[in-house]
């Protein structure tokens, strides 16, 4: 079953649509376990992943990137919201969780803890297909084939245990494991962040090759802006469980409209002496997601904050072609002094 055969909606239909995704983790306290507060890890997120693209997701630690990834795969249950995969709602009778999970896989950051230390890498890779009913012999053959594709010669590596491999080799195994169920979408949650730079580059190139070869779509989560810029077609910037900015990679990196994105970008180390960072663009930690600030969540750290920012919550508004930002300065007639005038 190739990825093309499973394609239903045609190339124009987004592969993944996320609507109003919400995850609040209750904090239980006291003897009876009463809910005393909610951590708003992901607080109303809407986005789409187009077929064949790589969507980069960036943001500081704790902004909800990884929670979003786990919600997409239903590894944790969303509090509210829905995930629509190629026109079918995940969990609906037409697209059950098991068949969705065959089409959507995930690669984790920690290459060691994401492999069972008691199983050979071949067995680990073959596990997924076997779960989906592929006979043992065929699953093992597929595992060996995939190990070869990710650059691990099966004759030497198939029978090894995870502790006998280097970090880069283990992450290749994890990629092979994700590919083994022949998915269409792969979520890479900080998949290269723990690797050293030279290995990271190899794995990124491998990911690009595999994408071409298998017609894959990636959601690439990272805190490393350089890597995201290198691999992504579109970029989504998250802040405190919300989408701050979303758009084509070149647009967002060249013409950031949200002050948070601008601050993130200026925190990137630059090799150009004329563009040296003089002062820290972002001071302090993000506010506590248990009690996020009212209005725009970024107003506590924003250089352009005005009273209106703490009163009005900015929606995602068009900020150019294929570019949206959740900032009152982008929204015409919002009341912010820097906002464009409302069209009459």
């Amino acid at each position, binding site marked *: 079953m190739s990825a093309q055969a499973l394609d239903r909606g045609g190339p124009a239909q987004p592969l993944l649509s996320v609507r109003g995704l919400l995850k609040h983790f209750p904090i239980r306290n006291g003897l009876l376990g009463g809910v005393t507060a909610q951590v708003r890890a992901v607080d109303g997120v809407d986005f789409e992943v187009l077929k064949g693209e790589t969507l980069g997701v960036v943001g500081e630690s704790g902004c909800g990137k990884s929670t979003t990834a786990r919600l997409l795969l239903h590894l944790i249950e969303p509090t509210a919201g829905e995930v629509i995969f190629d026109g079918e709602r995940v969990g609906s009778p037409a697209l059950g969780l098991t068949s969705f999970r065959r089409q959507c896989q*995930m690669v984790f950051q920690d290459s060691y803890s994401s492999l*069972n230390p008691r*199983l050979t890498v071949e067995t680990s890779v073959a596990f*997924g297909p076997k*779960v989906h009913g592929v006979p043992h012999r065929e699953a093992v053959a597929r595992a060996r084939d995939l190990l070869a594709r990710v650059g691990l010669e099966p004759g030497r590596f198939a029978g*090894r245990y995870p502790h006998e491999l280097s970090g880069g080799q283990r992450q*290749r195994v*994890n990629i092979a494991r994700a590919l083994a169920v022949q998915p269409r979408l792969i979520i890479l949650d900080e998949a290269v962040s723990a690797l050293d730079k030279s290995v990271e580059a*190899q794995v990124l190139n491998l990911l690009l090759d595999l994408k071409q070869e298998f017609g894959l779509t990636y959601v690439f989560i990272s805190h490393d802006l350089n890597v995201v810029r290198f691999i992504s077609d579109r970029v989504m910037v998250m802040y405190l469980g919300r989408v701050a900015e979303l758009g084509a990679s070149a647009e967002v990196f060249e013409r950031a409209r949200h002050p948070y994105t601008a601050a993130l970008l200026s925190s990137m180390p630059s090799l150009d002496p004329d563009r040296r960072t003089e002062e820290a663009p972002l001071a302090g930690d993000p506010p506590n997601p248990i009690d996020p600030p009212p209005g725009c969540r970024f107003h506590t750290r924003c250089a352009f904050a005005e009273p209106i920012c703490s009163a009005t919550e900015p929606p995602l508004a068009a900020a150019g072609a294929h570019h949206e930002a959740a900032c009152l300065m982008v929204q015409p007639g919002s009341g912010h002094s820097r906002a464009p005038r409302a069209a009459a």
Partner: protein
Amino acid sequence: MAAFAEQAVAEPPPAQTVGYWAGVWRRLRRDPVAIGAGIVILLLILMAVFAPYVAPADPLRASTLRRLRPIGSPGFPLGSDELGRDMLSRLIFGARLSLFMGITPVILAFFIGSGIGILAGYVGGRTNTLIMRTIDVFYAFPSVLLAVALSGALGAGLGNALVSLTVVFVPQIARVAEAVTTQVRGRDYVEAARASGAGGLTIVWVHVLGNVLGPIFVYATSLISVSMILASGLSFLGLGTRPPDPEWGLMLNTLRTAIYVQPWLAALPGVMIFITSIAFNLLADGLRSAMDVKQ
């Protein structure tokens, strides 16, 4: 593609790959203490199994004329007890009941406790709370007290002693099993298996069991010595083995009146208990380090 394929090949090949248990055995073999302990245990078991062939005399044949002979007396290499029975033969036959009472409750508790603990740890949430708080009720009692109370309530006898010892160990093993399972459940490979669409039973069977049974097994091995000593205590109270059957704990207790007359003789059953329990503990330690993959 060729460039990084070469890169991967260029790294030095690690030592020859072996299966997990083969690796454990290889590491265990290099540990002289664990091997020594294993040999002692093996000898004790052989001694127990072939007791009628090994023992020089009938362990039950008493004589009021030959009471409390010292160690090394003619015809009594390890002396005779307060009823004139051959000490060496009684120690050899005693291994049967002592080992049986040491090992059986732990094996039973290993299966029951692992089952309960893995269930609680894997399912988590309220089920976990319910199971573990119930377990805590049993855990709150001191083991000796619980064993005596249960044995007393069930009535004297070997079978009842066995049951009560099992009940004493189940909560302890369940706790370890729950802790290890909770830890393993949080690993990314379990998440990855869920993401592959595998069901709970498949995940437990393929990914959880192999990673939790080792530590639980090691813990259980260290309980064998505790079980032997508790069983001896029950025998002393008349709740386990009954005289005249030879059992080390019971022998220790009946000989305690002779401690001023033949102190070395009176200590012999204690020496046997000590040797056996330390052998089991050392073997457990050796297993623990041999099973640590990241060595």
